[in-house]
Structure formats: structure tokens, C-alpha cells
């Protein structure tokens, strides 16, 4: 039984179906009439923002611990007094709130309040903070006041505190309220005005891990602003914790040794780049900064001539002086300008054309080979050899050791230092490179600038057998390094030289603390004043574990000032972690 479709029948049915489709749309129009015209007022009222309020719930940041699990950054509960901008519109609203605060010993004028509300404003029904950092006692005191305005309500918040205080200020950094610029620059639109962000240090470096996930709460309130019920609630989620490689106790020891002098001390594991000590002196307490300090206190910090907020370990670039000689030595040996038998006679000075370059020891060192030149820090040896090596090779080898590049430590604000060469000098001074510049360069003076962290890294490479490690503070970060092109034999020669420094050379004062150190002294001339004292070394000499670099700005002689500091620091660590 086969019957083809009849066109007429199909068209007939089509009209029916089409009419159903088109006329059924009028049902939608009826719906729109009902909701948008007849009941519009009711819904406009519901939507007009006076019933639903949004509160942003900031999560606690992740905690930060030192290598041994000692807390370096944690959160404590305090209270903010919050309000909705729409409830604070008229002068009397502000006066009422300001009066309340004044009665309970919290200084705040109605003008302050108004500015603060305007600064935080996002939407009329999005809560802002009127007063922050209140204790539980203060809050209960305020709420009990018979004239406590219904527009205000307390909200618990997390405040950041740093139990390590000034000891770890440059590592931890601090948090603070997000600035207008930061708000505009943000990529993922996560933040809103009034949010807390990491401003420097680990807090800034690992902001995205530490910050957690913001929650929010939508509440319906009555016409007087009293909360009726929760409409929506998303829990805030705490940020991830971070464990550092830093050792707070050793940090305290570093602070004791530096004793407030301007300078830096850094200790690193020679093998994996874990930073155990990272101390910039003088330091500051980051705690007040997170609670909000006055402009006066802030400028006292920033205008201090000792610049306590400057991170001298990785952000300060200094002429390295004689501690740089290991790099020059590596270049000389690897380019076959000298070998273990090559000697130079040091009469106390070096003539280059019309110029005379002095050795630090005016009476001269006599005949020196490379090991002896390192031991005695003989300048003339390096003057002469560097002229033969030439600046291009010298810079090539400096570059190999990471001079002039960031170490890649997980901390913001790192300085590259300055690996100055021909092009740099031409660009900067419009002068060509002279041999005299090369000679200065060879002993770590002239245009060359390095950070204490860069130097610690160079010495770690000698200690670990030729790997340039990337320093790291986050214990969960994978160790990284790059192999150096230096031969074992040449490296051993240099290591012998810097071991001799401590046993019978310029760094003998590092030898009397019960551990075997290899290292190099440096006394860097400083165009702005007193010489900088350096010592960079590692221990134990035959099986190195830690490398330490110390710099004392204007400290004078590296031999007498620098070496005992490094020796005591390393002795502390080796004695401690036995």
C-alpha cells in the first residue's frame, strides 16, 4: 500500500502549522505585556537595588613559613566597620558616623569618611569599609552605643602580620591596599578597590598563589538596611601556603652580625640554590605598613639616608672589587693567557703607557703565579694578564658567570648590575674603551657593578663544580642551573687560590672559627665615599655546602671587616645543621 503525498493536502496542513507557530508568539507578547507593563512597577522596585546588597568576602592569604616551619607571614582576625554607599549620602549620615567614632576614641572627621567612601565606591549596594582594623572590644563597644546607626555593620576581616618582623622584611615584602594604577593594570579583573595585594617581596612574587579566591554574599535587606536573609553566599577560599628555604634563626644571626651597618649578607646552598640567609641591613618592620601608616611615618622610612627599604642583597649593585678576581682568573686560564706555571713580577705598581696602576700593597708581592695572586690578591698580576686577555674575552667570561644578568631569584626588583663593555661605554660616555678600563675591570673596579647575590652565585659555581645555580626562596620551586664551560683543572687551581686566601693570604681572619672556608676578600673603591668591604666564600672547603657573601657599605677593608662576618655566619650554619 503505497500512497504518494498529495501536494494539496500538505499545503493545507502547512497553513495550520504555520498559523499555530505565528499566533502562539502572541502568548509571548501577552507575557511581556504582563511583566513589563502591568507589573513593571513591582519589578522595578525589586531591582532598584534597595533590597539586595553585595558584600565582598576577602579570603585569608596563604601563610608563609621558613624552612623549619616557623611562620613568617600569617593572618589575624580584626574587624572592619562596613556600610553601603547608598546609605551614606547626606552630610548627616557622615556626621552621625563620625560622631560615633569620636565618642569611642576613634579619630575620624566626616570629611575623612566622605573621601574614603568615594575612593572605594563601586556600586551603591556594594559594601565599603568605613573604619578598619578594629579589635573585637572596639567593635562591641561601638555596636552597644545607643546611637549606633543602622547603616553600619561590622564585618570580620583578615589582617596580615609578620612574626619575623624586620628580620625578613626584604624577603617577605608586605601587603597593602591596591592602588588605582594597580587596579587599572590588572589583567584578570580579580581585584576591586579596597582589596589587599602583595606590594613587594614574596608577597608580591607569589601574589596569585597567596591571594586565594574571593567569596561574596548577597543579602536582602529591608528599607532600613537591616539584613533580612541571605540570597547567595560563596565561601572565600584561603590562599595556598608557601614554605621558604630561608632559615629564620640564621637570619637572626645575620642581623646580629651586621649590627645595623649598611650592607647585605646572603647564604645559599651551593648545590640547589636554596637561599638560607637573605639579609639586607638596616631593615624595617613591615607590620605597620600592612596596617596602614601615616604619610609622615612613610616618608620617615623612605627619606632615611640609610635607605632601610632598599633590598641590598639582590637590588643593590656595587663595585665587586677583588672578589671579582676569580672571574678574571677563569678567563685568563681558559683562554690560555696563563697556566699554572706562568708568573708575573709585582713591584707594587703597573705601568700602562703614561698611566700607573698601583697594587694595593705598595711594596709589591714579588713573583706571583695565579694561585699566589689570588691568595695575596695581587693586583699587578691581574693588570698584566688582563691586558693580554683583552676586554672582549674578559667580558665574555664575565657574562658566562652571570655578571650583568639577573640571577632569576623568585623575588621582584632584582638588579642586573652592570656588565659594562665597549658599546656600553660608547653609549654612556661617547668614549671608546681604553686599556686602562680593562685593567680596572680585571680587579672588579671601574664600570663593573654586581649584587651580593650575583657574587654568591659565582662562588657557588666554583664550590659545586661548575654549575651556575638559580637562587630560589620557594622551597617548592625546582632547582635550576646552567653548566659553565670551565675545565676541572682550571677550576681546581682557582679553588686552591681562594682556599689559600683563608689559610695564609688576605682572609686569614676567616680561618679562626673552627670551619674550613675558601673565599676571597674584596675592598672596593667607592667613588661616593669609604671603601666597601666584601667577603665571599664557601665552606667546608673540601666538600662545600654553603656559600656566603657579605658586603658592608663603606666598611673599609674586606680582610678585617668582611671575612670574620662570613666565617661566623658559616660556622653558625654548619654547627647548627650538623
Amino acid at each position, binding site marked *: *500500500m503505497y*500512497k*504518494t*503525498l*498529495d*501536494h494539496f*493536502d*500538505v*499545503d493545507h*496542513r*502547512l497553513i*495550520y*502549522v*504555520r498559523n499555530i*507557530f*505565528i499566533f*502562539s*508568539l502572541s*502568548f*509571548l*507578547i501577552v*507575557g*511581556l*505585556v*504582563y*511583566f*513589563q*507593563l502591568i*507589573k*513593571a512597577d*513591582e*519589578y*522595578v522596585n*525589586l*531591582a*532598584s*537595588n534597595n533590597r*539586595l546588597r*553585595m558584600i565582598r568576602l576577602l579570603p585569608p592569604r596563604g601563610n608563609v613559613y621558613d624552612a623549619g616551619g616557623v611562620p613568617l607571614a600569617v593572618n589575624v582576625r580584626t574587624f572592619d566597620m562596613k556600610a553601603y554607599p547608598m546609605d551614606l549620602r547626606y552630610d548627616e549620615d557622615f556626621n552621625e558616623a563620625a560622631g560615633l567614632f569620636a565618642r569611642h576614641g576613634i579619630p575620624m572627621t566626616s570629611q575623612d569618611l566622605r573621601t574614603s567612601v568615594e575612593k572605594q565606591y563601586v*556600586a551603591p549596594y556594594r559594601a565599603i569599609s568605613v573604619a578598619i582594623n578594629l579589635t573585637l572590644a572596639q567593635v562591641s563597644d561601638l555596636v552597644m552605643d545607643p546611637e549606633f546607626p543602622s547603616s553600619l555593620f561590622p564585618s570580620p576581616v583578615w589582617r596580615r602580620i609578620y612574626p619575623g618582623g624586620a628580620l625578613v622584611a626584604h624577603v617577605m615584602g608586605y601587603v597593602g591596599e591596591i592602588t588605582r594604577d594597580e587596579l587599572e593594570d590588572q589583567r*584578570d*579583573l*580579580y581585584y576591586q578597590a579596597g582589596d589587599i595585594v602583595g606590594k613587594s617581596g614574596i608577597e608580591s612574587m607569589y601574589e596569585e598563589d597567596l591571594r586565594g579566591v574571593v567569596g561574596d554574599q*548577597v543579602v536582602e535587606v529591608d528599607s532600613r538596611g537591616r539584613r533580612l536573609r*541571605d*540570597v*547567595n553566599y560563596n565561601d572565600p577560599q584561603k590562599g595556598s601556603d608557601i614554605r621558604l628555604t630561608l632559615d629564620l634563626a640564621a637570619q637572626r644571626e645575620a642581623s646580629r652580625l651586621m649590627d645595623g651597618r649598611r650592607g647585605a649578607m646572603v647564604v645559599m646552598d651551593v648545590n640547589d640554590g636554596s637561599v638560607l640567609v637573605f639579609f639586607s641591613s638596616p631593615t624595617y618592620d613591615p607590620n605597620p605598613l600592612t596596617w596602614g601608616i601615616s604619610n609622615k611615618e612613610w616618608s620617615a622610612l623612605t627619606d632615611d639616608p640609610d635607605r632601610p627599604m632598599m633590598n641590598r642583597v639582590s637590588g643593590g649593585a656595587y663595585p665587586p672589587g677583588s672578589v671579582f678576581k676569580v672571574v678574571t682568573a677563569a678567563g685568563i686560564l681558559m683562554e690560555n693567557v696563563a697556566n699554572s706555571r706562568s708568573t708575573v713580577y709585582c713591584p707594587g705598581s703597573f705601568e700602562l703607557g703614561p698611566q700607573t696602576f698601583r697594587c694595593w700593597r705598595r711594596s709589591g708581592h714579588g713573583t706571583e703565579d695565579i694561585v699566589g695572586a689570588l691568595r695575596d690578591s695581587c693586583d699587578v698580576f691581574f693588570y698584566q694578564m688582563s691586558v693580554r686577555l683583552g676586554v672582549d674575552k674578559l667580558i665574555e667570561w664575565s657574562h658566562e658567570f652571570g655578571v650583568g644578568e639577573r640571577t632569576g631569584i623568585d623575588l621582584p626588583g632584582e638588579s642586573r648590575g652592570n656588565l659594562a663593555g665597549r658599546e656600553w661605554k660608547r653609549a654612556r660616555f661617547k668614549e671608546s674603551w681604553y686599556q686602562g678600563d680593562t685593567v680596572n675591570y680585571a680587579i672588579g673596579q671601574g664600570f663593573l657593578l654586581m649584587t651580593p647575590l650575583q657574587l654568591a652565585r659565582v662562588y657557588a659555581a666554583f664550590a659545586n663544580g661548575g654549575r651556575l645555580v638559580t637562587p630560589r626562596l620557594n622551597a617548592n620551586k625546582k632547582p635550576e642551573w646552567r653548566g659553565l664551560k670551565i675545565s676541572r683543572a682550571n677550576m681546581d687551581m682557582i679553588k686552591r687560590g681562594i682556599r689559600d686566601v683563608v689559610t695564609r693570604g688576605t682572609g686569614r681572619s676567616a680561618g679562626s672559627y673552627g670551619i674550613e672556608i675558601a673565599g676571597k676578600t674584596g675592598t672596593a673603591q667607592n667613588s661616593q665615599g669609604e671603601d666597601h668591604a666584601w667577603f665571599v666564600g664557601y665552606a667546608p672547603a673540601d666538600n662545600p655546602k654553603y656559600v656566603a657573601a657579605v658586603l658592608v657599605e663603606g666598611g673599609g677593608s674586606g680582610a678585617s671587616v668582611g671575612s670574620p662576618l662570613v666565617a661566623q655566619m658559616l660556622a653558625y650554619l654548619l654547627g647548627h645543621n650538623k
Partner: protein
Amino acid sequence: MLVVVLCLFGLGLVSIYSAGIGVRTSTMLFVLKQLVWGAVSALVYVSVLRVGYHHFIRYSYWMYGATILLLIALSLIGAVSKGAVRWFQLGSLSFQPAELGKVVLILAMSRFFSRNPPNSLKNLLTALALSGISVLLILLQPDLGSALVYVAVVFSMLAVAGSPGKYLGGLVISGLAAAPFLWKTLKTYQKLRLVVFLDPYIDPQGAGYNVIQSRIAVGSGGLWGKGFLQGTQGRLHFLPEPHTDFIFSVYAEEFGFVGGVIVVLLFAFLFWRVSRAAFRTKDIRGKLFCIGVAAWLWFQVMESIAMSMGLAPITGLPLPLFSYGGSSLLMTALALALVQSIAVSPVRDKFSQIA
């Protein structure tokens, strides 16, 4: 017809932009993506028009088979990842086979009914079995909304293709009879969505929340609306999925009753044009195809707009041409291109018969 389509797409873009402001990502992202999809769709439209609908209908059984395989593959992936899977992920773009299935099903059914009119019980049951496979697979995803679209499409095509009234009546009755059993197979959240539409205040913080908020959005739009970018409901995350499921709520809040009626009239005109193509063509397959497309778009328009007013359960169906979503846009363009091809080809049809 093209003008209407472009108007709807344009208004959709405006609403997607507005909805995007509320979402915590780059505000232009959805608009740009949608524009790209629009361009792709335009390309598809033009090429399909050139190829002509005959070829599509000729290969429709094969395409239908392939779609079924895709759906099966999707269920298998879904079984492995233990969740609802409706997309194939191709790089940053995702593709919903359920959308493709709509066009292909209509094509296949047009071909089937033209050869085997559903005026015999045998043909009717074969058609139901054929289409039932895809409906079942879609239900398994689970995508209740799309499954309902399939049902509406097949039913309309049956009606037009000349099923006797007693068969249609029988289908409705058996459908109603099966409802209680289907109800049991639904997931709890699906049941809730169905119930809250009857009384959203049963669960105002959970499932009913969306209904209430959407109603507030539409209702507060009033006669003229709050104006472009002035809507507060969509912006403040009160509306879930503001750029897809609840796009009409965003639109109606900002452009009010007047804007809403304009959109409804645009769709009415679109249906008018699609059914006119059905009248004009001499090809019975073309007629059936057009009515299938009309049924599909009609169902989604009714559902999506009614849902935004809380007059229909929430199913997550996009508003055709309007909502953000590549698969839906692309398939709508493909379907409308085929309809257009049918509308312009009676002349060409004669030639092909001679040849």
C-alpha cells in the same frame, strides 16, 4: 529574510556585549568570538546556497548516521569523564553535536517522509524509531532541552506530512502516559527546574533563584527599558549564563517592552518567510524541511523567551541567532541557507528533472 536574520544577530551581539560586562573576563571576548562565528556562519550560508539543498537531502541518511556515531562517541567520553558532556573541544572552540543533529534530523526526516509518508502505521513507527535513537542519545547526555526540540520537530513534520489525526492524537496520549515514567528518570536538578517554574518561591535561593532574577530583569525593563548597558540584573551576576541562556532577559531589561516586541515580531516574520518558502516549492522534501526548521526555531524561541519570564521551565536552550554560541549560530545559518536554497530553486528543479 536575510535582513531579519542580520537584525536578530546584531541585537544579539549588543546584548552579548552588555552581558559580558558583568562577567569577570575581558568584556569584548564574547562579542569578538561571536563575530568570528558570525563570519564563519556567513561563509557557510553562501557556500550552502551555491551547493543547493538537493545534495544535502541526498546524503542526509549518511549524515544522520554519522551524527548518531558522534553522539555515541560523546556518551562514551562522558562515561569516562563522569559528567555531562555536550561538547567536542576543538582547540579553544567547542562544538555541540546536538545542534548539528537538529539540522541533520530534519534533512533525514524530509527524505524519509517524502518516500514513506507517515499515513501508514508502519511508516510512522519506522520514523519514530529512526528519530528516537538520536532523542535517546541526547537525553543521555543529558540535554533535556534539545531532546524536546527534536520531539517538537518530528511531531510537526509528521503532522504536515499527512499523518492522520488519530495517529497524532495517539502519540500525544501515549506521550502523556509516558510522562510519569520519564519523570522518574530525570535528575533531581532537572525536576527542580521543572517545578520551580510553576512556583519559583518554593526554592528562592536555589533553583528558583534564576527564575525570580530573570523575571525581575525582564519586568524591571518596563516599557522602554533601562537603556543600553544600564541593566543591573545581568551586570551584578544575578543572572546565570547571561550571554547564553538568559540573553533575552538581559536584552529585555535594557530595551524593555518595545525592544522585546520587536524581537518577537522579527521572529514571526522569519517564520512567515520560512513557511512561504515551503508553499512556493514544488518539492515535497523541501516543504517538509522548511516546516522542520520552522518548528525547531519556533520551539527554541518560545522556550527561551517564555523561560526568561518564568513562564516555561529552564532548559538552557539558546535563543536562535541571538544567544552567544558558535554551534547554534552555525547550524541556524546552515538551516536558513537550505531554506533559502529551497526558496530559489523551483526553477532549477525543472531543469534537473529534464536532465
